[in-house]
């Protein structure tokens, strides 16, 4: 039974496993390792996942959704479709679809059933977001063995073979999240020294910046655009952004609804616009370095991970900060998934990894709220496990009653770095009874135990009565167990688009997008291409479907190349 490693990304997801020759990625039905994290509903009411859905973002915006990782851990529901055939999905469920598709890919590739997985999450994902990810796994029929922090995974993949002994920093700028980890490798020990991050900062923010600027430049109001036009603008911005990575000036011209957007964008200008985002990138790096009690020059290597780290602007900034040329040996998109596979190898004690030990940290502070001065209304956070403490860890602290004859002590458990409780994330609460006595006479011993999988156990013991209250904050799901079960059943009923037809679906979706973007004669041409191709698919007797498909794909390629003249 193989455990797979899954990188469930904001823009792309990957699945991998540990083989005897090291970590291996598993291709999807389209022979690509990257499966876009996009979910859509097709015309038959089936769920489309990945490339096919991504292509339909523009043509069927109300039926397609991307970027849902950003809402993980929230209650934000998305409605796909309208009328009777509409679906309502939570972010967990959308992620579950992607996981289901990855699971199917893995089963196809490995030739066996896959039921267990290690999923990577941004290091700075909070407890609730982590649980949502575990729930997503459950909904996809996967037992989530453990979660691994993305930069840790990257460090594992990078550190396993690339370095002997060094301290290096992983800079993981994905589509929607940003993480920094500092790793120390020596004697086959891979020790995460510190992790910091920003859950709401990623490559997409740079894109959105371009979108805003385009909107100001061309004087249109993004909000007033139709969903499909909005997606077109997003796509245009994405292309401009990518182009700016490769050259100084990106020229663009696109027809969006009534408007024709034409112009050019200087890299300098983009960099100036991105200044505030770049400043935000510095904060976690500085924190990680400080937490690891290092100085920038102690960092021997900086490894860039995540698609957005390809940008020369970002690389330059990192280079300046650390006075090192950042490295990116492995494909930055793939390294996290590879690391997740290494973790599965570690987990199963694969022989080739016998000697390797990895220790991770708890990336945020865990504590409770208490009164520390004479003002009893002034609750502040008392940290019990400080951020970047090596896990597993168990720490305790004493708390005492503040009023005479107080019989109960309430403990709210918080996660976060802020002083005021309300600025942090409330994970839950515990109540413990104490005998009535004078203020300060009765107390409790509060022990926080944080295990290697990111589960927190809080044990509260009344000092005088030795009565113990325990609470495990694992699986205290955002969805209750019954609800999870119910949703699982409901999801199982929804048909996914057949895997073997994935390639055709992508091509048709792509063609439809091109159709939507083009005008007049070109439209007619694209339409005829689509209809011909559909004809060829339904015509079962056609044995040359592969050739037809190739021709179709080539025609689309040519069309597309002529459309966005980026040079």
């Amino acid at each position, binding site marked *: 039974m193989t455990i797979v490693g899954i990188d469930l990304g904001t823009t792309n997801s990957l699945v991998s496993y540990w083989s005897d020759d090291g970590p291996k990625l598993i291709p999807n039905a389209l022979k690509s390792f990257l499966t876009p994290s996009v979910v859509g509903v097709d015309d038959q009411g089936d769920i489309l996942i990945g490339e096919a859905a991504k292509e339909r973002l523009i043509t069927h915006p109300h039926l397609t959704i991307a970027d849902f990782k950003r809402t993980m851990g929230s209650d934000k529901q998305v409605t796909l479709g309208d009328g009777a055939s509409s679906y309502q999905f939570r972010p967990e469920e959308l992620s579950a679809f992607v996981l289901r598709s990855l699971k199917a890919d893995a089963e196809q590739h490995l030739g066996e059933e896959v039921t267990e997985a290690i999923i990577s999450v941004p290091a700075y994902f909070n407890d609730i977001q982590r649980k949502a990810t575990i729930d997503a796994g459950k909904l996809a029929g996967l037992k989530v063995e453990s979660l691994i922090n993305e930069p840790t995974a990257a460090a594992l993949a990078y550190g396993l073979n690339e370095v002997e002994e060094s301290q290096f920093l992983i800079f993981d700028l994905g589509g929607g999240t940003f993480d920094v980890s500092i790793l120390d490798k020596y004697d086959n020990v891979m020790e995460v020294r510190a992790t910091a991050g920003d859950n709401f900062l990623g490559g997409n923010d740079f894109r959105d910046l371009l979108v805003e600027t385009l909107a100001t430049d061309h004087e249109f109001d993004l909000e007033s655009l139709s969903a499909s036009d909005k997606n077109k603008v997003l796509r245009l911005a994405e292309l401009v952004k990518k182009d700016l990575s490769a050259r100084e000036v990106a020229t663009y011209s696109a027809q969006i609804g009534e408007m024709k957007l034409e112009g050019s964008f200087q890299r300098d200008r983009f960099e100036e616009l991105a200044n505030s985002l770049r400043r935000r990138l510095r904060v976690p790096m500085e924190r990680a370095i400080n937490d690891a009690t290092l100085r920038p020059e102690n960092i021997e290597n900086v490894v860039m991970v995540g698609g957005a780290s390809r940008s020369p602007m970002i690389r330059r900034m990192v280079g300046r900060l650390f006075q090192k040329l950042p490295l990116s040996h492995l494909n930055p998109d793939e390294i996290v998934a590879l690391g997740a596979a290494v973790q599965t190898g570690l987990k199963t004690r694969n022989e080739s990894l016998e000697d390797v030990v990895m220790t991770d940290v708890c990336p945020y502070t865990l504590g409770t709220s208490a009164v520390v001065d004479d003002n009893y209304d002034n609750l502040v956070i008392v940290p019990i496990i400080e951020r970047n403490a090596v896990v597993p*860890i168990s720490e305790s602290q004493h708390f005492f009653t503040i009023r005479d004859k107080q019989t109960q002590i309430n403990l709210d458990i918080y996660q976060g770095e802020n002083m005021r409780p309300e600025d942090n994330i409330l994970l839950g609460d515990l109540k413990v009874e104490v005998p009535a006595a004078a203020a300060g006479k009765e107390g409790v011993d509060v022990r926080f135990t944080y295990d290697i999988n990111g589960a927190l156990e809080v044990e509260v013991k009344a000092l005088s009565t030795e009565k113990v209250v325990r609470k495990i904050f694992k699986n205290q799901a955002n969805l209750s167990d019954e609800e999870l079960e119910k949703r699982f059943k409901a999801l199982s009923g929804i048909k996914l688009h057949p895997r073997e037809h994935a390639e055709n679906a992508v091509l048709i979706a792509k063609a439809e997008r091109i159709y939507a973007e083009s005008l007049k004669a070109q439209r007619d041409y694209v339409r005829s291409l689509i209809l011909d191709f559909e004809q060829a698919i339904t015509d079962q007797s056609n044995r040359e479907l592969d050739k037809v498909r190739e021709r179709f794909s080539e025609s689309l390629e040519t069309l597309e190349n002529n459309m966005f003249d980026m040079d």
Partner: protein
Amino acid sequence: MENETYQTVWERLGIEKTDDERAIKRAYAKQLKTIRPDEDPQHFQTLREARDEAIYLAKYDFDYEYDWEEEDDDPDAPRSEATSHEEDVSQPSDNQCDNLETAKTTVDTPINNALERALEKGEPCSDETYVLTLDEGGADTSHVAGQSAELVRDDEVTRGINDPLTLEEPLEEKDQSLSDDIDTALDIGSDASPDISFYDTDIDDVTYEQIDDEVENLMGPWSLWDRNEWKRFINRVREASFDISNYAEYEILRALGENLTEGKIESSYKRDARLNILYYLDEEYGWTQNDRRVYGILSHEQSEILMDYLRHGESGVSHGTSETYYDAFGFPLLTAEHFKDYLGKNDSVYEKYYQTSREDGRELKPSWCWPGFIFSPLWLAHRCNDGLEALAGMFYILALIILHYGLTAPSLIATLLASLIILSLHVLVGIYGRKLVVTTLANTLQDLHNGEPLSEEEKLKKLASIGRGGFKALFDFIVGMAGIGLIATLIYRLIL
């Protein structure tokens, strides 16, 4: 510890007491193979705590008690070790906070938690604070396992914090130690003689010629290494993958020539800062030790960022509040405050001019200045108060004399000639005025910098007193006028 069998951290790690951080880590790694964090979390935690404490002891205890002789005995100690040691000892008092930081994470006691909180609140790291937090910590130590261990820790914390405070080594010491370090670093590099034959095969002769002139320009007379090596290096930068060359070419090539010329290096610490950081370049790109060494010589700008980081513990480039810096081209770095204080009104015009023109060029580009053109001598007197106001005075009286001559002389040619001369003077000031102002400001700043050490505030005050010269400037102006007037009168007398 609560266990009946009390173990010292060294016993726990299974090694003798040592100050070798590497050895401690090795022992920890060895034990870790048997105590897996996921299987035996409790033992793991004690092991890890023992490791942390051992490293802490190695860093602080040993350094102050034993390490003075041992340092000489052990020249082969890993360089990172030596560096960290140097930092601990030789960083002057502005690094107290850093030392506290180190103390904080290595020992997990309430004292340190309290210390950290104190640090976070941004309280000064004074003795009072320390005592206060120690009390706070002492009040709730009861729940921490192991009283005896606790005592040792308190002791260590005290020493770790106090010792760096008492060591007040002069700044020069620090510079020296840094510089030694760099020399070592460079020596390591030069030991491995660069494999030139490898390059020769790769070099395309056409490219070679194309870059020849550029190398000539960059090298200057002060080259540290063989000129051909430079050529090869630059050639390789060009051949490297896009992101490398994109990253490297602009900044490195422009900066190399100037940074390498010894004559331009103002003080040793600046040079050290520049040399301090060696880029690591991966084998994948085919870069050799030599390339790395060359690459390691950074532009001013980059080293300043680092220096700032070292000084303030944050990477915000705050030139306005620290020493005078030099930009990537060796030009004193001017900030908005400088302009504001030196020039008073309309400073933003000059700042903007400076910003745009320093961005890419080594020279300030001339920029047209209307006030300079119209009021040229008066404007000069108003703006350039670094002795130039006297020149302005001369210029002024000269212009008047010429004007007078042109007007009184009965010939048309004389009139035209006089007007032409005046006009060209005005045009010259119009064209070069701004450049002159910024250069004067930069020179003034540099003079201040080279003179007695001043805080940035004092410097700004001084700048203001020079820049808006008042009576002294007026005096100079008049002296200039009188001087040239006197000379002109003399010449006039002599000739006629």
